[in-house]
């Protein structure tokens, strides 16, 4: 009991130390603060959004930024500032839960493949390779157009497609661990496969999988906003950056503010997540610099 408690405390301490290492470099600190800012904004923005995000007013179309409308208004007379601060909520929620799903299934399948090896491993990796060679955008568009664009479709679909890469990372990490002496001795002690996975393998591959998951998060956000941009993501009038950019793009020569505000929101969030993920990888001592974006 006391041992477990101590371990819990150690885990907390470890998390704290990782965050401290991440924040000790300027790029990590910037990334963490941007991410924190966006998370707080997404949680609290409905409390202080100055206007109704779906209130259409033809008399206020394409107003330039002013003290009344900080970021101007869009082609339907909606306040761009309101829609921009609300615009990250769906994206953050969908991609966060999507990443968790990707981490879970990618991690477990990868560890399983690494552990069993042999024929099963070969077959599964072939199938994963085949899935990797279908452009994600085609598969996502097909699923979304046949099943609809609700978050209940988007979250598992994104989670599935971005989990493929995690399978490879988890498998490779498991391969590295599995030949080590402590696994052999655990087997010799007669531990079950499940207990070996939980107690011996997982602690050793966890870092690599989590870093990959953090990276996937930013790519998933990119994918999600691309879908919205193409008109296959969240449906209007929900405020979403990708959708806002695609709507405001046509009138960009008259009203650049309506396109620049969501661009700033989305770019800063993606850069924030990327910097955080990089700092996270460095803090855990994992080198991602030679990896391709698959």
């Amino acid at each position: 009991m006391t041992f477990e408690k101590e371990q819990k405390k150690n885990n907390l301490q470890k998390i704290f130390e990782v965050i401290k290492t991440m924040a000790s470099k300027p790029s990590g600190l910037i990334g963490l603060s941007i991410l924190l800012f966006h998370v707080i904004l997404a949680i609290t923005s409905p409390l202080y959004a100055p206007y109704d995000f779906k209130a259409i007013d033809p008399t206020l179309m394409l107003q330039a930024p002013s003290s009344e409308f900080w970021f101007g208004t869009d082609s339907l007379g909606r306040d761009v500032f309101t829609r921009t601060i609300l615009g990250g909520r769906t994206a953050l929620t969908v991609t966060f839960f999507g990443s968790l799903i990707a981490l879970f299934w990618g991690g477990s399948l990868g560890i399983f493949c690494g552990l069993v090896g042999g024929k099963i491993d070969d077959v599964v990796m072939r199938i994963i390779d085949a899935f990797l060679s279908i452009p994600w955008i085609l598969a996502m568009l097909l699923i979304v157009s046949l099943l609809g664009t609700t978050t209940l479709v988007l979250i598992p679909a994104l989670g599935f497609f971005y989990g493929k890469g995690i399978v490879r990372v988890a498998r490779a990490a498991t391969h590295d661990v599995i030949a080590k002496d402590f696994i052999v001795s655990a087997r010799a002690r007669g531990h079950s496969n499940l207990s070996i996975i939980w107690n011996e393998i997982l602690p050793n591959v966890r870092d690599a999988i989590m870093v990959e998951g953090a990276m996937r998060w930013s790519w998933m956000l990119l994918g999600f906003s691309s879908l919205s941009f193409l008109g296959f993501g969240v449906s209007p009038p929900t405020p979403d950056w990708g959708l806002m950019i695609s709507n405001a793009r046509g009138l960009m020569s008259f009203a650049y503010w309506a396109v620049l505000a969501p661009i700033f929101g989305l770019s800063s969030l993606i850069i924030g997540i990327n910097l955080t993920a990089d700092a996270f990888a460095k803090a855990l001592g994992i080198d991602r610099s030679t990896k391709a974006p698959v």
Partner: protein
Amino acid sequence: MFFLVLKRILLGLITLFIVSLITFSGVEVLPGDACTTYLEREAYGAALEACYERLGLNTPAYERYISWAAGVLQGDFGYSLSGEMRINDVLGPRVKNSMVLASASILIGIPIALLLGIITALWRDKLPDIIISTVTIFSMTIPEFISATLLILIVAIWLEWLPGIVIVPTGVSISELLPNIILPVIAISMIMTAHMARMVRSSVIQVMASDYVQMAILKGVPYWKMVFKHVLPNALLPAINVVALTIAWLLGGVVVTEVVFNYPGLGRLVIESISNRDLPVVQALAIILASIYVSINLIADLMTLMLNPRLKSLQIKK
């Protein structure tokens, strides 16, 4: 060596076979089929029966798969739903347009990426590296549609240097197409260059830290001779695979970029066919894009094999 090449090709073919199974069964498993999605509300009674009859959807799935796969193997993708056109005729000009865009981006992107990667690696953590690395990180993290939109806003609308949107018909000749593709090429090669430059940078840094380079420095080999003779050949080899993966990954990004610039290529066809629920075209596109991905990877594998003398002698010994 020969058997190794044969094995790689065989693996690629197996991958493509699985892709064809996945796309076929995916369309099969998901609710709605070509007829119900195409006819929408009129999908009942005689109209539905006639459609099933016309497309041969009333035969069992495996029979349809076999006849479809046999057609694909002979280079025949069948007919599209919406236009009643042969899919080959629809695809032909699109493939050509996309190839023009992609090859222009690759031809411009790879040399710049090599140059930037080498500069940033040799001047690591100095001013050139800091500036170039910051720019590359920005251009590779920001989504394609944002950089493309910003390019149009700045270059086409504010500066009025170039047309922002491509307005050419699908079947236009290459010479007419070229002046229109400047902005799309910049948008695509910007992201690609950024990815590749970073790979080249880390690869060169790794080789620079190796023992034989230290030895060469101690021996008094002139700096640039060492860089070109000892470092680059070894550093660029592992970068080939990564470059291939980056190009393949860009297939998705090209779809979005083509939509932003209204470019009549494969990418826009993806969106059009999915909006029209033209499932036969979607299947054909999946196979084509997957074959491009597989062949790029195959070429990269073979190039690495041929350029790496160690692997070659290993195979001969066998």
